[in-house]
C-alpha cells in the first residue's frame, strides 16, 4: 500500500514537472486532467480499498470535476480565444524544469522539519503537497497567458487538496467538497473573464494588461 501511494506521489511530481516544461496549452490541460483523475483515485488508495459509499461518491465527484469538467471548460476557453501555446514565459521552460527538482528538494526538507499532530500515511505526501502548491504558484507568476494562470490556480488547489487528503480522516470531506465548489465557480468565472479579455483586447497576455490606459 505504501508503494502504491508513493507511486501516485511520483506521478504527481512528474505531472508537475511536465506542466513546468510544456508549452502547448492543450497538452497542459490534458496533464492537469490526468492529475485531477490521479488525485481522485488518491482517497480510495489511502483508505486501503475498503468499499465505502461516501468515499466512492467523493472520488467520483473529484474525478468528474477535476478530470472532466475543468479540462472541458478550459478547452472551450482555449478554442474560443484561439490561444494554442504559451509564448515567451517570464521564466523559460528549461529553467522551470530545473527549478522543479530543486523546489522539490526544498519541500522535502520543509516536510521533514514540520512537526505533524498525527501520523500520516507516507512521508512522501507532505513534501509533494507542498511541491504541487509551489508549482501552482510558479505557474501563476511565471506565465503570461491567462489560461496558463488558471491552470496554475487549479494545480495550486490540487496541492491543497493533497494536503487536506492526508491530514484529514473522513470527517472534513464536507469541507473538501466546499472548496471544490469554490474552485469550480472560480474556474467558471475565470473562463468567462478570459473570454471577455480576449474579446476586448484580442489577446490574453496578462502582462500587457498593466497598461490599460489608452
Amino acid at each position, binding site marked *: 500500500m505504501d508503494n502504491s501511494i*508513493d507511486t501516485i506521489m511520483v506521478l504527481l511530481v512528474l505531472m508537475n514537472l511536465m506542466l513546468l516544461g510544456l508549452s502547448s496549452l492543450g497538452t497542459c490541460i490534458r496533464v492537469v486532467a490526468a492529475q485531477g483523475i490521479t488525485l481522485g483515485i488518491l482517497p480510495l488508495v489511502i483508505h486501503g480499498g475498503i468499499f465505502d459509499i461516501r468515499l466512492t461518491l467523493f472520488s467520483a465527484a473529484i474525478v468528474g470535476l477535476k478530470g472532466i469538467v475543468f479540462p472541458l471548460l478550459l478547452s472551450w476557453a482555449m478554442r474560443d480565444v484561439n490561444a494554442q501555446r504559451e509564448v515567451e514565459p517570464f521564466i523559460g521552460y528549461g529553467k522551470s524544469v530545473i527549478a522543479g527538482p530543486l523546489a522539490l528538494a526544498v519541500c522535502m526538507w520543509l516536510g521533514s522539519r514540520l512537526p505533524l499532530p498525527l501520523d500520516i500515511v507516507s512521508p512522501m505526501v507532505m513534501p509533494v503537497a507542498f511541491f504541487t502548491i509551489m508549482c501552482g504558484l510558479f505557474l501563476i507568476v511565471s506565465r503570461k497567458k491567462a489560461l496558463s494562470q488558471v491552470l496554475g490556480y487549479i494545480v495550486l488547489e490540487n496541492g491543497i487538496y493533497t494536503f487536506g487528503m492526508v491530514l484529514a480522516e473522513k470527517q472534513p470531506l464536507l469541507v473538501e467538497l466546499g472548496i471544490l465548489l469554490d474552485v469550480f465557480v472560480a474556474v467558471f468565472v475565470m473562463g468567462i473573464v478570459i473570454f471577455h479579455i480576449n474579446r476586448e483586447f484580442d489577446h490574453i497576455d496578462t502582462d500587457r494588461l498593466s497598461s490599460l490606459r489608452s
Partner: protein
Amino acid sequence: MNLISIANSVLAVLLAPLMFGIINRTKAVFAGRTGQPLLQAYYDISKLFQKGAVYSNTTTWVFRAGPIVGFAAVLAATVFVPFGGLPALFAFKGDFVVMVYFLGLARFMTVLSALDTGSSFEGMGASREVTFSALAEPSFLIGLAAIAKYTGHISLSPMLAGINAASWGHAAPALALIGLAFFVVLLAENCRIPVDDPNTHLELTMIHEVMVLDHSGPDLGFIIYSSTLKLWLLGSVLIGIIVPVHSGIFLLDTVSSLLGMLGLAVVIGIIESTMARLRLLHVPQLLLGATALSILALVLVLR
C-alpha cells in the same frame, strides 16, 4: 581483481556490433523490408579495416590519433562495467566517474579531430555534440549518484549488484526514474533517433555523423566500432538496473542480461521506427527533462 572478468570486455567486443544489426532488423520489420543481414556491422567494419585511409593536407596528427584514442578509451571503459553474472575487471571506489570520463575522453578526441579538419561544417557538428553531451552528463552522473546512495557503494560492480528484485519491490519509483533518465542519455549519447538520426546525411540535422565525414578506411572502422561499444556499455549499465537478476547462477544471470540487451535493441528499433527526430531546439529540453528525472530519483533516495 577478477581475471575471468576480462570476459566482459571480450563479450562487448564480440557482440556490440550485433546490437546495430538487431536495431536495423527491427526497423526493417516495421517498414516491411527484409533488411540488412544481422551481421552487417561486422562486414562494414572488416571492409573498412581492409581499406586505406585518405588524409587531407590540412590535418595534423590529432586527426589521425582521434579515432584510435577514442576506440581505446571506450575499450578501456568496458573493464569497469559489470555484465550479467560477472563483476567488472577493475573495481575501486569511484570507478563510475572514471568510466564516464573515459567515454568523455573518447568524445573529446572525436571533437578534436573534427575541429582539426578545419571544416566549418564539422565544427558545427562538434559544437552540437559538445552541447548535448554537456547536458546529458549531469543526468547520467546524478543518476549514478542516486544508485550509489541507494546501495551504499561507490563502485560500479557492487552498485549494480546491490539492485535486485527486492529493491524494485520497495524503491520502484526511484529506480524507474533512473532507468528512464539513463535510457534518454543512452539515446542521446549514441545519436539514436529522438536526438539524432544515425541514417541521415542531411546537412543541417546531423550531429555525430557530421564530425566523422573526413575519416576514411580503418579510422572510420574504429569510429563505428567505438560507437557500437559505447551503445553496449551504456546499455549494460541500463540493463543492470532494469533487469537485476542476481541469482548467483552464472549462466542464468548472463543469459538474462543478454536477453535484456536484445530487448533493449528491439526497443530502440521500435522507437526509431515510430518516432520522428526532435527539432534541434527541443533536444536540450529532453535532456533537461532527463536531468530532472535523475534529480527527482536522487531526492527520493535521499529522504
